[in-house]
C-alpha cells in the first residue's frame, strides 16, 4: 500500500484492467462507423482504401435526409417538452406528498425502461388503430413520451430530493402561495435538472427506432430513414456518415445535460 493514499483510494490493478476492457467492449463497435464513413469505398471492409468526405457531401444534397432530420427534431422537441413537464409533476408528487403505495407506483412509472419497446410499440399500434387515429408524427411523439418519461423522472428526482422541504415551507411562510413558491423557489432550484431532462429526452427520442417503426405514418424520422436506406448498398456509406453525425451530436447533448446537472445536491444545506 502506498504511503500517500488512504486504504480506500489505493490503486487496484484488476479493476483498472476491467475498466479498460469494459470501455473497449462498449465503444469500439461504435467507432467503426465514423471510421468507415471516411473510407473511399462503398464496401464496409478492411483494408481501408482511402480518405474521403464525399459521403458527407452527398448527404448534404439529399432532400429526404433534411426532411427526416426536421421530422426527428420536431418529434424530439415535442417529446422533450411533454415528458419533462409530466416528469416535473411526477417528481414533485413523489418527493413532496404522502401517497399511499408510493414505492410500487414509482416502480410502475419506471417500467418502460425495462419493458421491451416492441411490446409498447405493438400495444400502441393496436390502440391507435382501434380508436382510429391515423399514424403520423403525432403518434410517434405519443410513443416517445411514454419511453422518455422514466428518463425524465430519473433525472429530476434527485434534484427534488436534493433540497430541504423546509425551503418550500419557508416560502409559504413568507406569504407565497403554491404557484408562486413553485416559480420563485422550486423551479429555479430544479432548473438544471429540467434542462438536463430536456436534453436527455430529446436525445432518446431523436435516436429511437422501435416505437417509430410501429407508429410512423408517411413522414419518417431520421432513424426510420436510415433503416429504409439500408436496403441499398450504394447508400450505405452515406448512412454511416449520417450515423456518425448522430452519435457525435447525441454525445455532446447528453454530456452537456450531465454537466449542467452535475451538482444534484445543489441547495442542500452543506453544513449539515
Amino acid at each position: 500500500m502506498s504511503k500517500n493514499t488512504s486504504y480506500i483510494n489505493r490503486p487496484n490493478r484488476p479493476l483498472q484492467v476491467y475498466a479498460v476492457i469494459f470501455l473497449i467492449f462498449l465503444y469500439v463497435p461504435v467507432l467503426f462507423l465514423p471510421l468507415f464513413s471516411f473510407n473511399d469505398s462503398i464496401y464496409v471492409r478492411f483494408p481501408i482504401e482511402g480518405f474521403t468526405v464525399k459521403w458527407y457531401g452527398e448527404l448534404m444534397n439529399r432532400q429526404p435526409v433534411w426532411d427526416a432530420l426536421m421530422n426527428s427534431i420536431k418529434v424530439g422537441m415535442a417529446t422533450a417538452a411533454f415528458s419533462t413537464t409530466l416528469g416535473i409533476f411526477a417528481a414533485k408528487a413523489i418527493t413532496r406528498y404522502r401517497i399511499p403505495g408510493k414505492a410500487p407506483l414509482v416502480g410502475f412509472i419506471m417500467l418502460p425502461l425495462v419493458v421491451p419497446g416492441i411490446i409498447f410499440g405493438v400495444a400502441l399500434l393496436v390502440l391507435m388503430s382501434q380508436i382510429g387515429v391515423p399514424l403520423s408524427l403525432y403518434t410517434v411523439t405519443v410513443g416517445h413520451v411514454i419511453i422518455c418519461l422514466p428518463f425524465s423522472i430519473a433525472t429530476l428526482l434527485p434534484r427534488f430530493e436534493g433540497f430541504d422541504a423546509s425551503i418550500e415551507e419557508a416560502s409559504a411562510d413568507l406569504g407565497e402561495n403554491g404557484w408562486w413558491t413553485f416559480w420563485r423557489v422550486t423551479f429555479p432550484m430544479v432548473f438544471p435538472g429540467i434542462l438536463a431532462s430536456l436534453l436527455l429526452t430529446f436525445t432518446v427520442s431523436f435516436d429511437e427506432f422501435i416505437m417509430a417503426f410501429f407508429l410512423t405514418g408517411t413522414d419518417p424520422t431520421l432513424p426510420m430513414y436510415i433503416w429504409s436506406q439500408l436496403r441499398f448498398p450504394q447508400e450505405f456509406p452515406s448512412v454511416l456518415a449520417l450515423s456518425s453525425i448522430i452519435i457525435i451530436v447525441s454525445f455532446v447533448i447528453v454530456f452537456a445535460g450531465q454537466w449542467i446537472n452535475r451538482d444534484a445536491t445543489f441547495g442542500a444545506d452543506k453544513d449539515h
Partner: protein
Amino acid sequence: MSNDAFISIQNVDKYFGKFQAVEDVNVDIAHGEFFSLLGSSGCGKTTLLRMLAGFESPTNGEIYIDGHAMSEVPPHQRPVNMVFQSYAIFPHLNVRDNIAYGLRKQKLSKARRYEMVDEMLNLIALPEYGDRKANELSGGQRQRIALARALILRPKVLLLDEPLGALDKQLREQMQLELRALQRTVGITFVFVTHDQEEALTLSDRIAVMSGGKVLQLDTPSGLYETPRTQEVASFIGTMNFFDAEVIKASSTSIELSARGLGKVAAPARDQQYPKGAHVQVAIRPEKLRLSNDRPADTKNALQGQLKNSAYLGERSHFYVSVDGIEKPIAVSSQNREQISTGADQTRPVWLSWNDEALVVLNAD
C-alpha cells in the same frame, strides 16, 4: 381562557396516523410575550409550532391568533413568520434577495425595498453582507438572515424552531442575548421551541414544559425551577433530590411531613392541599442545601451523612452525601467562594441543612 390572550391554543390534539403527537393542549400566550415550548425530542413541541405556522392542522381543537380561528387559514395567509431549525435560506438567492423575499406583494419601489433590507441588515449586525451568496455564510450568519427575513414582514408572531441548536456554545450564548434584546426592541410575540432548559430559562417570559404531547406545566422560569409540580418537570429542569414522604399535618400556610431519610420536615403550602396521611414527595434543589463539618446551630433542619463523592466544576462543586434510610446519595451544589483543594478527604461525616422555603411538595407518581 382569558380575553387578552393573543394566541389561544384550545383543546388541540394532533394525530399522525395512530400516533398522537399532541394531546389536549390548552395554552394562552399574551401579546409581546417571549414564550417557550420546552421538551425533549418527540415531545410534540415542534408539531405544536408547525400547527401555529399552518404546516400541520390540528386533528381536534382550534388555534386563535389575534382573535381569528386559524384552522382554515393556509400558511401564506397567517400573520406569523417562522425561523426554521435548518434556517431554510434560499440557496439560489443572495442575502438581500433572501431578506426581501416576502416583500413582493407589498409592491414597493426598488429603492424602498433596498432601504428596508439595509435596515434589517443593520439590525442583525451584518451591514455589508447584502450581496453575499447564501453558501458563503456561517451558521450564525444564516440564523440571523433567517431572522431578518421573517422580521422584515413585521409579523404579529415570530415562531422559532430550535434556531440556536446548530451553533456552538459561545455563539449560542451570544445569540441568546441578542435574540432577547431584539424581541424587546421589536415587541413581537415570540414562540420559541427548544430542548435546552438553560436556554428556555434565560430567554423566556413563560415556559410550557411538554412531554408525550402534553403540557406538564406552564409557568415563569423561576416558577418552574423553584416550584415544579411533578417529578418529571423537576428533573427535566435542573437536578433535584426527591424523598418519599407522608403528610402529617396540613394548614393553609405550611405542610408538615415525615420524609424518608430527612425525618420530620415542614414545607410551605403554596396553594396545595393534601389530606393527612397522603403519600407525596418532597424535593429540594442541590444548591439549596448547605454542607458543613459541624452541626449548624441556627436551624432545626439538619441531617448527618457521609460525604461519598465530589465533583469540582470550577465556579462550583457538586457533593454527594449518603444518608441512612435512602439509597440514592443526596446531591449538594455549592459555590466555591473560597479556593478549595480538589481530590482531598473524600469520605467523611458532614452535616446537611436547609430552610423550610427550599422544600417543594410534589404529587407522588
